[in-house]
């Protein structure tokens, strides 16, 4: 019997690896994404011997593991846990670590390291992962003795998941995980240099309340901070009470209901015209948990020039970094919104003319696309997926045109159902992230909307769908091109399509079938319309190769270097 075997295999004295597994159990870890190798053999052995309840998901590449952990973290708001070996295992994680750092996702990344006896000798599979990850982690540790493991793991989870979330790397030399460990540091963690400000200064909130009273054209901008802080409900209460219109960053989508009459759509480079004009014209811009990233702001010289700017952010370094801020509020977004609601005065004069102006603008400048008589455009397909699911799905995307179309046409009604790589813009993210989401939320419908380019960067994870029979729905918006690159070449490089048209590609249906996954090719609107709902409702994994017209561009658009008040492609061309 397996249980007996496990007990038999257990050494009389715990090893560092056993202590590590216990520490993870203490953190209530339920899922680890990983890939074994020499330097983590002791850890994998301890995993094998352990009775712990958690599941280990063997991805087919470390990058798949870390993106899956990011997806898991995004929808649960709990740290995703990754385990990889030293050297190439660890360096394969680098893209995901940088991605998580940019998008403030909590991760605890465990990497094996060569034994301390050979550290620094260019030993087999040695890489200076501490040096490599220092600029792309919230913090990193190299374990110096097994004694420290319980404390370091506690600290790592605490750092990853509190304040502004982010990735924490814990590098564990092989001899430390392999050797017996007689004594451990059970002390609570000690982080005198880390005390994030969670609650707002009530006086600053008062200033915000006063500004709201005075404002004639107020606007709320939501960022992912609202999601991390669990502030969506309170935000909705406030916006409704004061009738303040709301726009969002790419990552903040879902923080406020996408189908709400106060919602103007996403702002920024491919945001709605109305959102960008609202930012340009508002007299009070209340940024809740966004970082004024350049894809949002465009040329700063034209950004919110008429506005008093209030900025709620848990990271003081974000306040005033890009945009001059009049009312800085260092706080968790959820806590700040609660305090705002508490101090909220009677509603100011309704901003009727402001809202009327914006609603008029929405009517005048809706998102548009051309629907040619033959063939299918991706925007139409995304819209149909949204309608077929009634928006009730977790959607992950890759990076490119399809990502922007998903952001434009999917109206997220609830928080934590939109998973996309914003800050780093990592192709290859979408599909493995969907695996992490599905494992975290087995009862939800998870759709990976991907491009034919990005999907091919991490498609090896089809094997995980097959193995676990995870009902992820992969929709490849297949334009046989690196669409976003092609678009920029069309717009700014006089249609010199350098290396962006990729006619040669695998038969995606056969590819799916090679993994015993159902694959379907949909080439016409009729085919798509008649089958999409059924396919998305299946409880099996499905890969849909949706053939879309290549020569389509994402509009409207703020051309690079211009202000967000200066969009092109607002009206149908």
């Amino acid at each position, binding site marked *: 019997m397996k249980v007996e075997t496990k007990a038999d295999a257990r050494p009389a004295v715990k090893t560092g690896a056993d202590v590590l597994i216990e520490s993870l159990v203490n953190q209530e870890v339920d899922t680890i994404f990983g890939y074994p190798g020499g330097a983590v053999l002791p850890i994998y052995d301890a995993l094998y011997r352990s009775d712990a309840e958690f599941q280990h998901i063997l991805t087919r590449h470390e990058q798949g593991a870390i993106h899956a952990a990011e997806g898991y973290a995004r929808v649960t708001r709990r740290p995703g846990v990754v385990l990889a070996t030293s050297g190439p295992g660890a360096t394969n994680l680098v893209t995901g670590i940088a991605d998580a750092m940019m998008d403030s996702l909590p991760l605890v990344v465990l990497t094996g390291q060569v034994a301390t006896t050979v550290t620094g000798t260019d030993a087999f599979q040695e890489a200076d992962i501490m040096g490599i990850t*220092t600029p792309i982690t*919230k913090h990193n540790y190299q374990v*110096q003795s097994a004694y420290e493991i319980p404390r370091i793991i506690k600290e790592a989870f605490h*750092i990853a998941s509190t304040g502004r979330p982010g990735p924490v790397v814990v590098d564990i030399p092989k001899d430390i995980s392999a050797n017996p460990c007689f004594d451990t540091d059970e002390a609570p963690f000690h982080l005198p*240099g880390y005390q994030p400000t969670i609650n707002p200064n009530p006086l600053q909130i008062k200033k915000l309340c006063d500004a709201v009273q005075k404002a004639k054209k107020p606007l709320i901008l939501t960022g992912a901070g609202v999601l991390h802080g669990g502030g969506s409900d309170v935000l909705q209460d406030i916006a409704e009470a004061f009738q303040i219109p709301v726009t969002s960053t790419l990552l903040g989508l879902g923080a406020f209901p996408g189908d709400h009459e106060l919602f103007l759509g996403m702002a920024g480079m491919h945001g709605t015209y109305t959102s960008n004009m609202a930012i340009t014209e508002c007299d009070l811009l209340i940024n809740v948990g966004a970082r004024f990233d350049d894809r949002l702001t465009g040329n700063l010289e034209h950004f919110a020039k008429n506005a008093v700017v209030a900025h709620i952010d848990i*990271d*003081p*370094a974000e306040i005033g970094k890009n945009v001059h801020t009049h009312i800085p509020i260092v706080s968790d977004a959820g806590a700040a919104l609660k305090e705002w609601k508490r101090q909220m005065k009677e509603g100011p004069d309704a901003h009727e003319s402001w809202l009327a102006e914006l609603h008029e603008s929405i009517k005048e400048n809706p998102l548009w696309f051309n629907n040619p008589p033959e063939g299918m455009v991706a925007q139409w397909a995304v819209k149909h997926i949204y309608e077929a699911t009634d928006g009730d799905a977790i959607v992950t995307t890759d990076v490119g045109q399809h990502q922007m179309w998903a952001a434009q046409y999917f109206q997220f009604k609830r928080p934590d159902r939109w998973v996309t790589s914003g800050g780093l813009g990592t192709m290859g993210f979408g599909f493995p992230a969907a695996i992490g989401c599905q494992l975290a939320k087995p009862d939800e419908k998870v759709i990976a909307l991907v491009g034919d380019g990005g999907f091919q960067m991490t498609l090896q994870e089809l094997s995980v769908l097959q193995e676990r029979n995870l009902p992820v729905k992969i929709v490849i918006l297949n334009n046989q091109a690196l669409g976003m690159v092609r678009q920029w070449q069309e717009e700014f490089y006089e249609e010199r399509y350098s290396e962006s048209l990729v006619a040669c590609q695998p038969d995606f249906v056969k590819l799916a079938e090679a993994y015993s996954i159902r694959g379907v090719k949909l080439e016409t609107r009729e085919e798509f319309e008649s089958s999409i709902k059924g396919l998305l409702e299946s409880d099996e994994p499905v890969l849909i190769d949706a053939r879309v017209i290549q020569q389509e561009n994402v509009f409207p658009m703020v051309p690079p270097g211009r202000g967000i008040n200066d969009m092109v492609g607002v009206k149908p061309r």
Partner: protein
Amino acid sequence: MKRIVTLVVQNRSGVLNRVTGLMHKRQFNIESISVGRTEQDGISKMTFVVDVEDHRKLEQLTKQLHKQIDVLKVTDLSEKAIVARELAMIKIVSNASVRSEVQSIIEPFRADVIDISRDSLSVQVTGKPEKIEALIDLLRPYGIKDIARTGLTAFSRGQQPQASELTQFSLLK
């Protein structure tokens, strides 16, 4: 503008790398660094002289430094009354005939001769960077063989003057 920024840090491996890497990434030019232990076990102090464009950049720098888990305290000393010193050792070409001449040059600087060989002489001097520069200039005609400087280290004076008097105390303006 030049600023003196001191950090109190937990003496963990990699902390210097983290701090200098951050400055590099955010494009702050480091003029000098000095690092040493403090009176407390496990706690070190770093003194940086950095060149920053403007106050907004400076604020970014201190905030970003503060975010580092191992950084306990960040102080911008530039606006305070401070005591700041650097140590330099200067080796010059010198034979017996010029030794007494050199001696008379270095005396007003309260510098010491710390090593003599047949054809060279080494001087040690401490003080503010301007003083060290001045001495180096005076010794240059003899032929400088080598210079080693520690970089500036600093802390605030026990008593701080009123804000209005600050400029005359501050070192780097």
